[in-house]
């Protein structure tokens, strides 16, 4: 075990797999010598050479298309999109190409070795274009896996699993936690299975579900609720596509209540999908409507960031309302 922040854990995962898999390549804007604007790829160019870790020209659609080509030809590309807010020029290559490569060719070709890493989320005074949480655009695209870690230990195991997964994965990294989240991380190689949620706190009254940077927010809200005698079962979804219906449904059948929290705007957010599925699976067990505590239906604002965010206080209030329904 070693104390690491999330960037170090991600860097460690990349180095472990580059060591084991000489087909793995790491690239993106500023990722070479500079190690990326957040330093997630620090030292990889020096360790594995400039042919395996390198800067690309400033073109996200190019990065994604290039990654598709590499993966289709048997390489293992790990492409960094500098901010998730800048993934949209690559949308066509990800949604129409990465996601459909296998299906459209009858599995003649696939880009299963491909992983996109990209920092997402707010809380860093980043305004519209350094704060967005665009995961729902990708969860609606069959063929892509979507993964979001909550802490360094999870980030390392989930990233290793994502890189080795036989499907293209969009790996969203909560940038607010890059340096803020520090914890024990096992040395060496390990994986966390994709598609499995993680019950981080057992409880009996209400299931509180989130992922990524919002995990620490909902854990704080659960602590506040505990002082009122409310027992929260806290679950980290980890994989949004595919997502672990079974674990969530099992929990809701026990607690009878569900609250889902995400940073992205409410309307069209992934919480809607979860709510629809869980009311189908657990209809007769539900004791109150499924609650959603999400970002407002506005672009991510700079000065009103606090007001916009689905913070611990809003989550705590929603837990109480759900209990008192």
């Amino acid at each position, binding site marked *: 075990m070693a104390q690491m922040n999330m960037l170090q854990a991600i860097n460690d995962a990349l180095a472990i797999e580059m060591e084991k898999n000489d087909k793995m390549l790491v690239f993106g804007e500023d990722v070479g010598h500079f190690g990326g604007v957040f330093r997630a790829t620090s030292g990889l160019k020096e360790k594995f050479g400039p042919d395996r870790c390198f*800067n690309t020209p400033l073109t996200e659609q190019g990065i994604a298309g290039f990654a598709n080509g590499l993966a289709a030809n048997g390489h293992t590309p790990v492409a960094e999109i500098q901010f998730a807010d800048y993934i949209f020029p690559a949308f066509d290559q990800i949604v129409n190409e990465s996601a459909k490569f296998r299906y459209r060719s009858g599995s003649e070709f696939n880009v299963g070795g491909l992983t996109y890493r990209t920092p997402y989320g707010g809380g860093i005074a980043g305004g519209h274009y350094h704060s967005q949480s665009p995961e729902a655009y990708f969860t609606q695209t069959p063929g892509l896996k979507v993964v979001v870690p909550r802490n360094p230990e999870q980030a390392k195991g989930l990233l290793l699993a994502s890189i080795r997964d036989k499907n293209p994965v969009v790996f969203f990294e909560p940038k607010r936690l890059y340096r803020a989240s520090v914890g024990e991380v096992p040395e060496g190689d390990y994986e966390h299975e994709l598609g499995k949620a993680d019950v981080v706190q057992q409880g009996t009254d209400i299931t509180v579900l989130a992922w990524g940077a919002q995990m620490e927010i909902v854990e704080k809200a659960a602590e506040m609720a505990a002082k009122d005698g409310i027992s929260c079962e806290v679950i980290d979804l980890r994989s949004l596509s595919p997502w672990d219906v079974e674990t969530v449904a099992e929990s809701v059948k026990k607690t009878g209540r569900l609250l889902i929290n995400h940073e992205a705007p409410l309307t069209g957010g992934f919480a809607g999908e979860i709510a629809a599925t869980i009311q189908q699976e657990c209809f007769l067990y539900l004791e109150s409507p499924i609650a959603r505590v999400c970002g407002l239906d506005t672009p991510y604002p700079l000065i*009103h960031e606090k007001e916009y965010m689905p913070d611990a206080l809003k989550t705590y209030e929603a837990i109480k309302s759900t209990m008192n329904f």
Partner: protein
Amino acid sequence: MSNATQTNEIVHSVSFLDRDSLNIPTLRILQADGSVYKDAVLPSIDEETAKRMYDTCVFIRVLDERMLGAQRQGRISFYMTCTGEEAAVIGSAAALQDKDVILAQYREQAALRYRGFTIEQFMDQMFSNAKDLGKGRQMPIHYGSQALNYHTVSSPLGTQIPQATGVAYSLKMNNDKAVSICYFGEGAASEGDFHAGLNMAATLNAPALFFCRNNGYAISTPAEEQFKGNGIASRGVGYGMHTIRVDGNDMLAVLAATQAARDFAVENNKPVLIEAMSYRVGAHSSSDDPSGYRSKEEEDVWRAQDPVARFKSWMLAQGWLSEEEDEALYAKYREEVLAQVKVSEKVEAPHIDELINDVYDEPTPLLQKQLKELKEHVNKYPQAYPKTAGRF
């Protein structure tokens, strides 16, 4: 011939063209000491314009120095300087008319100042206060002004390039005899939007000026890792576009090139590409430290080619500026900037209602409901939301 690919010459053995096949000269008018080359053709410039240009140089130098300092003190969250690129931006802005529409990338605060943006407007934006035209929604330096024909800055790179083509086409259809000017860096020129924007401007005959600030770096990535061609200018020729490369640290050369480009664009309804060769003397932004990717020696070489010093020497030689006036100008702006910081940082944040305004022309019922619930929540926990609590 419907295909514009002209075949001028048929050959009978293999020979390739390469990056050196195209010889692109660089326009320079001012020498390093501020004197004019003997055979140089000067742009049209009078004393009043020259003074306004120099005044803008000093203002921006002071603004950049003081606001980077304010960022370091934690008074604002973010800043970007344009140090070293003042001549490229001011020289081009001075060639325009007020009706010409500016679409900036993000490092062109000098063009906005030249148009008349006030110290107060700059500060109100950077402090995200209630008087900010952008209502505090974007990070510092994302300025914009309808009155000054300056589109509001958007962080994603290169998106403004095809937009400038659309603006220019609109100006043409309105018979405005005006151009759009689109600023971008050599890094943004790698984005797909660059190709889309320039090709459409050429094919649709849009009077747009594409002004590339080739400043050597895109954050940490040097130009030699960004492209292998003969700069950005070589691409303009490929699009069938009038193209010129200019010394971006030479105020008069930039002015001359942009004046000629504007005249050509308006008369012929055609785009022009200008590549200004310069150097980003400062960091990419206040979040960046260039010592990790380039040497002090390299920076010093460019510091010695300071565009403001070169223009100042010319102004002094013209008798349009004295050392005393220059010192007084710096002193005046230092005082004014500092005074405005103190005023703007005390102005309250935009009202909570502004959260849901402008998402659409009118807030939707769902947004109104979300705002109502938010207000109830803020009222319950006022201490957690100090920017808006108690103000509605």
